[in-house]
C-alpha cells in the first residue's frame, strides 16, 4: 500500500537537510544572543 511505503531516499534526504539547516539556525541564534554577554 503506497501510503505505508518505507521511507524514501528523497524524503530521508529532505529531513536530513532540514535538520542540518535548523541546527545551524539554532546555533546562529544562540550565538547572536550570547554575543551580547558581558565578558
Amino acid at each position: 500500500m503506497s501510503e505505508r511505503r518505507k521511507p524514501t531516499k528523497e524524503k530521508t534526504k529532505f529531513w536530513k537537510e532540514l535538520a542540518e539547516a535548523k541546527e545551524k539556525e539554532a546555533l546562529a541564534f544562540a550565538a547572536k544572543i550570547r554575543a551580547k554577554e558581558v565578558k
Partner: protein
Amino acid sequence: MTLSRQLADLTSGGSTTLATLDDVGDVNLTGLEDGKVIYRDGATSLWKAAWANPKDPVADLRDFLDARYGAGVWTGRTGVGTGTDIGPAIEDAGLALRSRYGRGTIRIPPDQWLMTTPPSAASINGHMIEGTSNSIGCQIVFNNNNAAMFTFSGAGGYTAGGVRHLALMLEANAGSSNSYVIHLQGDATNQPDQFLIEDIYSSSLDATAFWYNGFLLNGQSRTSPQGIRVGSINNYQQFRCRNMSFGFFNAVQWNISNIGSYSGTGTGMNIYIGGGGTASTNTTQMDITNLVCSGELNLTNATNVAISGLTNTLATATSFDYYWLDLNHNGWSGSLGGSGYQRFL
C-alpha cells in the same frame, strides 16, 4: 523640599509630592530617566515616575523591576546565569494587575532578560505576557533546569491569558533539563480556556541544553465542560527538547497554524495529540495547518481533528477517528479509526 530635589527623587524611581504640574516646566528634567513619564497616583496623592501609565491595565516589566530591586540597580541578562531575575518582578506585575483590574497585559521590553524563578500560575493566570517588539527582539533566558517557565492553570476562575512575541530560551549549560516552556494545566473545576499563543521562538543557548517539554496542554482533569477549551497558536517554532515539542491532551476547539519542531534529542521533536481514552478526556475539534514535525506525529484518543503539513514519521491508533489528514510523511505505523479522510504523500 525643592522641586529639583523632588525630581531627583523621581529620577531614582522614588515618589514625591509636587506643588503643581506647572512648576515642572521650571525645573531641569535632564536627569529623569529617558522614557519615563510623570503621573499622579490618586491613591496616595503623590506624583510618581513610571514607564507605563498605571491607569491602564498594562504593566511594564521595568516598573516592577524598579519597585522590587530599585531603579538603576537591576540589569538584563549579562552572561550565563547572570543578570537580574525577572521572575519575581513578573509575579509582582501579575498580582498588581490582578488586584486592580483582574486581568491585564504584562509587557516585556526589547532586551535580553534572565529568569531564574518562574512566576506562579496564580500571579499570571488570565494575563497576556507579551514582548513589545517580536520574538527575536524580546528574549527571556530561563536559568532553571527543573521547572516550567510559564504555567497557566485558570485557578480562581482566572481563565484565558496568553504568551506572544517572545524568544523563550533555555540557558547555556542547562544540560538535559526537566524544564517546560509553556504548561497549561488546571484541575477539575478551572482550566486556562480562551488561550492565545503567537510569535514564539523557543530554543536553547548551547547545543547540549535541552528543554524537557516545549508546549504541553493537559486538560484531562476536567471532564465537564471537558478539557482546555478554545485557544489558538500561531507561529511557534520549538527547538531543543528531549521529551516532546508539543503535546495536546484533551484540547477542545483549538486552532493552530505554523508550528514546527526541530533540533531535539530522543523523542524531543515529537508532537502528540491525544487524551485519556474516554470521550470526555480526549482531544476534539482541532485544526492544525502548516505543521512541520521533525520527529513523530503521534495521533491517538482524539476525534474531529484536521491536520495538514509535513511530518518525518506518523504513528496512529484506531482511537484517532473522524479526521482529515493531509500529510507528507516519511513512514507510517499503526492504524486509524474507521471514519476519516486521508491524503498522504
